[in-house]
């Protein structure tokens, strides 16, 4: 049944955009709820950001997880228990490949196909225009629902300082792949996030000279505490205030006071910024291999001027400024995107005015993302099923959800920066999703 000759109606099928970790979990959850799924992936393999072969993958050769295995694996497909506490990125890719093989998810993925646009077709249905990445004709298909799992770590956030007059090389951290790129160079790393700190540490081992520029101080969490992965040691059941106290105490015991190395003191409390997990930064600061500097004011010729007037002369500048979410295939108002580019979604997942549109994996949790993406996808799939099976109950659930306070699932007290748009505490977030799942359970 086609209402216009060139739109293929896929009836109750759901369209998933992206076959990275979040997309794969979404395909599986939708199938478990009995949906047919078409997943579109612009690359020719699964793994998304974790697949280093992909153009848009930000991983570098030495990247390891910053959350430990039990807090990172899918809740229904554990990583092998003889893997290291903090697996390498290639292990995570292998894990995602096995996940997709194990559950036969590839059957539903259209590789080398990108989504050009998604437009409402009335009745909660969507027209999805796709095209082969190599070029070719566009194709329009109609779906009952669309779930974007296109990731949010691939569009580099622009660096605000003008670099046009600078003679050295400037690159975004996403272009950094291998420590060989640093060997023998004088490197300035800009950015105090996990990537910035990782690269600064690598540069400390490879480069001739390293400056690390950070705008503010952070709470550097160690990877290990008492010989155990530190994220397994922090009791997540305590109220936030106690955890903040414990966190301060843990930092005092491990990294200690970093201001004597010239790093600024944190201008916020623990858990108010995305956790930076790095045990080695302080070590290399102490060895003088890394020089902490402030914000960059200008770059011209061979010199970089810092905000305190100091001048340095790096020949390689790596900007670890982070990434911005991008949904080029969706009109901004569909996701209530504000002028800064920040989408406003219920639980960072459900479009507020379109019950059949959702985003999976758009979170910055203080633990691994995969478990949260899994439960998001379970909630979205159950929600879509409930809408079909029991519309009255679905309406009641929607009503209940509309009054769920944002502070119950999102960190509101965070450092104002696009980096923290999607910051959530994983236990608070999971509690909210669990509550939603409970409301959607069929009455028995």
């Amino acid at each position: 049944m086609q209402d216009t000759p060139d739109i293929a109606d896929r009836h109750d099928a759901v369209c998933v955009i992206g076959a990275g970790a979040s997309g794969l979990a979404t395909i599986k959850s939708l199938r478990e709820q009995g949906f047919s799924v078409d997943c579109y992936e612009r690359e020719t393999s699964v793994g998304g950001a974790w697949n280093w072969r992909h153009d848009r993958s930000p991983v570098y050769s030495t990247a390891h997880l910053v959350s430990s295995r039990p807090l990172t694996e899918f809740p229904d497909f554990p990583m092998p228990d003889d893997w290291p506490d903090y697996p390498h990125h290639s292990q995570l890719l292998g894990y995602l490949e096995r996940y997709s093989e194990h559950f036969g998810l590839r059957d539903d993925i259209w590789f080398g196909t990108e989504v050009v646009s998604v437009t409402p077709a009335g009745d909660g249905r969507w027209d999805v225009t796709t095209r082969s990445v190599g070029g070719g004709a566009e194709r329009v298909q109609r779906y009952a629902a669309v779930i974007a799992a296109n990731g949010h770590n691939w569009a580099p956030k622009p660096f605000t300082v003008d670099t046009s007059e600078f003679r050295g090389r400037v690159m975004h951290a996403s272009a950094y792949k291998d420590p060989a790129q640093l060997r023998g160079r004088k490197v300035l790393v800009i950015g105090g996030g996990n990537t910035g700190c990782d690269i600064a540490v690598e540069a400390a081992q490879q480069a001739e000279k390293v400056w690390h520029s950070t705008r503010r101080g952070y709470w550097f969490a160690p990877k290990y505490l008492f010989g155990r992965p530190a994220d397994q040691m922090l009791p997540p059941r305590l109220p936030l205030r106690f955890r903040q106290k414990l966190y301060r105490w843990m930092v005092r015991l491990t990294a200690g006071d970093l201001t004597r190395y010239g790093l600024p003191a944190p201008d916020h409390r623990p858990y108010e910024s995305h956790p930076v997990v790095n045990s080695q930064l302080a070590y290399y600061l102490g060895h003088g291999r890394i020089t902490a500097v402030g914000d960059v004011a200008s770059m011209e010729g061979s010199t970089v001027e810092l905000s305190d007037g100091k001048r340095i002369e790096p020949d390689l500048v790596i900007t670890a400024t982070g990434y911005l979410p991008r949904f080029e295939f969706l009109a901004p108002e569909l996701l209530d995107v504000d002028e800064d580019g920040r989408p406003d979604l219920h639980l960072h997942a459900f479009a507020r005015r379109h019950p059949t549109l959702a985003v999976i994996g758009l979170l910055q949790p203080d633990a691994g993302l995969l478990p949260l993406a899994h439960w998001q996808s379970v909630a979205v799939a159950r929600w879509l099923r409930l809408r079909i099976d029991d519309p009255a109950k679905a309406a009641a659930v929607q009503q209940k959800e509309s009054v769920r306070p944002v502070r119950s699932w999102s960190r509101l007290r965070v450092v104002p920066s696009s980096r923290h748009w999607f910051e959530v505490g994983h236990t608070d977030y999971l509690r909210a999703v669990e509550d939603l799942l409970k409301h959607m359970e069929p009455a028995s």
Partner: protein
Amino acid sequence: MSSQLLRFEDWTAPVPAVRREVLSALPHPDEKNPPLLFVPGLGHGAWAFREHWLGHAASRGFSAYALSPRAAGSLRAYVHDVVQVAAGLPRQTVLIGHGVGALVVSHALARYPAKAAVLAAPVLDGWPALGAALRTNPFGTLPAFFGGGLGLSRKQLYSPGCTYERKLTREPTAVYRSVLTASRPAAPVGSPPMLVVGSPDDKIVTRKALDRTAARFGGAPLLFPGMGHDLMLDTDWQEPIDAVIDWLEKELLA
């Protein structure tokens, strides 16, 4: 029932890794059927399935694996091991638990979306099984109450003319305690099709317990009269495994 989303115990005190004993029989050529993972109950090991069932399942085109319970384990550790092995197999796996192994499987189903599940002579609730054991084998069972470990006898497990009694191992009482005090498993994830098989002449799993288990998972048990508790070792071992594979083939077509 504890939360399935907030797994504080697994986050802060993960089950330690061990080397697991997994026996297997693989079909040639591989017919792309889902693999079968057999989980033995207490006192038994993977050997109990190697006797007949593994080879027979392979001859019918299914790759078949059996996992021995870890030494000095607990229900939580057994469940962990089952999920670890299942997730390590190339395709979505069918879990088949026997005796207390069925209890382990019923808990593993909440942690791993199995392709299907079979509970054979399932001991899901330890108390009636303990009562039945006291009636048929008081001298083997009583020491368990005083820390002596539970002994199983030929009469309990096998029909006349069949015995593997000498291969049975004694598990520490703590293991039995963790089984008896287990909380009800959470609902299976991914709603797999389930089958309950057993014998009305089982001396450990009463007919009533069998019916109760089957009713819980939505069906009637498949019965094999005249057989003892150890369906996979009894002289008529082929009947139940053929019935299980027939059922599975039908479910996979659906």
